[in-house]
């Protein structure tokens, strides 16, 4: 593949993203400690959670509402394995606990992926939603694991330090992990495995006739999604220094869905775009007299508006803008189709089961 030409359209598409990353690199200098920690770092790990959803939706055609439940499993597993107030009395080394938490989450993800691998589209959505709510009830009711009022003071590895006193540490860790997740998924999209997944998204029956084990692929994809969600979950526990059932209830599941949709359900960048919009809006409206208590209504209306008017989310809007500008002002250049060859194609609404 020849390297893509630098066109106005591409510059517009990538420009703001790169600028944002540059700004973030200097985050601790530009933002107050509070804002850095409470809003931006939160947006970063929420973005990772949304990315796990967008990965599954955009690359494999599996819209899953179970990502928050999965990250909750990672978080609770880690919180129970390390020193903390509440939960089990086991006290492992924080790195070991983290690793184990991720492993457990991936295990559950693979198990659940196996169960749900034969279900498609809206049916799959329903099953993952049921899974998410059941997981919440599980942790709410099994207080041996969820502690007395949650698991507090979860021990963190030294490098993470204290998110309130030294927000820069966790900020850079979250930033680094976000970048890693983003690059990993983009890279994966070009590997044979990734291409097979996209094939499954587009036409499972054809893939089957080509000899691919479609349920296995879907199960593995779900496990991968669980891995990404686990990263988000671990970060969220480090960020909060605690975890409780209320951290992974239905509102949180819907929050991540809302973020993904607002950002753009099939655009990976949308994960973080949606997350930052959400976090900023949340923080801003809390101070407002009129809105303060009714943030949920506001976000519900924004969500509805996006779904009705621009299903591609903010990234979809941005894409239209760059398209338009590129066509108007750009010179001869490879058509939009070629430019989009490396990005997940705007998939059909739902893949059709065989």
């Amino acid at each position, binding site marked *: 593949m020849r390297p893509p030409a630098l066109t106005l359209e591409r510059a517009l598409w990538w420009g703001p993203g790169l600028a944002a990353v540059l700004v973030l690199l200097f985050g601790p200098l*530009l*933002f*107050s*400690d*509070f*804002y850095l*920690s*409470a809003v931006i770092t939160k947006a970063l790990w929420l973005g990772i959670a949304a990315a796990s959803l967008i990965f599954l939706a955009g690359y494999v055609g599996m819209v899953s509402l179970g990502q928050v439940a999965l990250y909750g499993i990672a978080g609770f597993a880690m919180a129970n394995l390390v020193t903390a*107030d*509440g939960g089990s009395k086991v006290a492992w080394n924080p790195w070991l606990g983290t690793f184990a938490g991720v492993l457990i989450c991936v295990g559950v993800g693979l198990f659940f992926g196996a169960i749900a691998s034969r279900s498609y589209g809206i049916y799959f959505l329903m099953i993952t939603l049921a899974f998410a709510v059941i997981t919440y*009830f599980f942790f*709410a*009711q099994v*207080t041996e694991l969820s502690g*007395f*009022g*949650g698991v*507090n*003071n979860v021990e963190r590895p030294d490098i993470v330090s*204290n998110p*309130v*006193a030294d927000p820069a540490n966790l900020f850079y860790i979250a930033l680094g992990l976000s970048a890693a997740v983003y690059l990993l998924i983009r890279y994966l999209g070009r590997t044979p495995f990734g291409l097979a997944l996209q094939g499954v998204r587009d036409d499972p029956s054809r893939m089957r006739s080509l000899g691919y084990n479609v349920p296995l692929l879907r199960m593995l994809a779900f496990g991968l999604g669980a891995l990404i969600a686990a990263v988000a979950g671990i970060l969220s526990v480090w960020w*909060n*220094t*605690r975890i*409780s059932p*209320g*951290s992974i*209830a239905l509102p949180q599941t819907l929050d991540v869905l809302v973020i993904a949709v607002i950002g753009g*359900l*099939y655009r990976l960048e949308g994960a973080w775009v949606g997350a930052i919009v959400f976090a*900023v*809006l949340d*923080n*801003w409206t*809390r*101070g*407002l*007299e009129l809105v*303060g*208590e009714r943030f*949920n209504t506001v976000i519900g209306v924004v969500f509805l*508006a996006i779904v009705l*008017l*621009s*299903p*591609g989310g*903010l990234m*979809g*809007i941005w*894409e*239209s*803008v760059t*398209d338009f500008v590129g066509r108007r002002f750009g010179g001869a250049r490879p058509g939009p189709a070629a430019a989009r060859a490396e990005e997940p194609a*705007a*998939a059909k*609404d739902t893949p059709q089961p065989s």
Partner: protein
Amino acid sequence: MRVPSEGSRTRLWLLLGALTLVLAAIAAGCGGDDEDDGGAAAEETTPAADTGAGDTGAAAEGEPIKIGIFSNNEGAFAPFEGQTWGGAMLPLINRGATPVSGDPTDGVENAVIAGHPIEIVYGGSDSTPDKAVEEARRLVEQEQVDILVGPLSGSEGIAVANYSKEQPQVTFVNGISGAQDTTLKVRSPNFFRFHNDGTQWTAGLGDYAYNELGWRNVVTIGDDYDFPYSQIAGFVAEFCSIGGKVTERLWPPLGEEDYSSYITQIPEDVDGFFMGVGGTGTVAFVKQYEQLRGNLADRIMGGIFMTDPVILEELGNQVVGVVTAGMTAGDSQEPAYLEYSEGLAEAYPELEGTASSVFAYGYYTAMEAIAQGLEQVEGDLSDDHAAFREALTNLELDAPLGTITLDENRQAIMDNFLQQIGEDTTGDGVPDVKTIKTIPEVDQTFAGFFSPETPSPDRDDPKCEKATPPPWTQQGGGG
């Protein structure tokens, strides 16, 4: 979801335009936060004293003091927000402030304590620890309050108390969150609780059950989460330490609305049972019990939920005769209490009749303690509030329902009240609650039964064991 076609392009541009406006507004609003000193969002706070952005740190003579107050504005306890704010505003109103409107959450104007103007900042969470800490952080780090009052729910309290250790320059005073661990285990040096915890609220019931009603075997039934654990822990501690036996503890899972299967598990031959079923479940439980087993009144004791006026109105006459306990006595005729109750109703007519609600009372005692503490040190908050905290620690608060002092964990020691639900004689549709006994000076440890080393109350803890009877029981020399 393909990129929209030509036809819907106008819609797209409209949406884009709207979004740009919104984003611009956000950017304008957040502009102030992009600086290292942060928190220039004073204009977005509740209308308060006309003092402009308050300075933080050592509040010298006449300098404004910023007090943040947060309760629940979402979640199961949201309906009680008005009561919490009413209670919190009353001490300020008694010192000359005027309510902004009939809605307590709008705050007050012209609040002054010891010559310092008071700026009130609004906050709200949804009864989950995560949100509570987020709100606490926003109020402390972004709004830069000097003193924080709150939170409301049990698990929130533990989380905020833990957070308070990170912010030694701010004094935290609990709202009404009732988990035992918040003070007994967390023991943050700048976190104060001027009311009894959930466990203390059942003091006196074990004694009454054993000595007055002659119960020897009891079954407890409570929702499977932290607050019922606290309530039942108190009952078990007292009842068992004087010789009673708790033969079984039933814990319907959280969210379970269908108690019928649990009710059938209650053995027929126990003397009585203690009901720690909470807010949303109380109504369902009472109804289902009636249908399956018959009248409740002579075999049941209840926890704090049963005396809340809002719940009582729901439960109606079916719980007449039931004995409960709590930290407030709605029928008190003491002048101090009447003054408090009437003052609340006068300031906020919509809160009439709710003065005895723990939500109002807890926030009231918090704010009153803060006010008295500030008055004692004349508003001196220098040196990380050293003098102020000293004053709070040694304060003997003359509250409407009795004196409140603090123990070494900054946890209140105060009276508890044994109450019985009676027929509605006042005609307001709410069964009357009659105080039948005052339990003096209940301490958090129940005479040593609870300590920082004992396990937190949960499904099996505390164990039912004979121990030193608490001083207020008959066996302990009280009664």
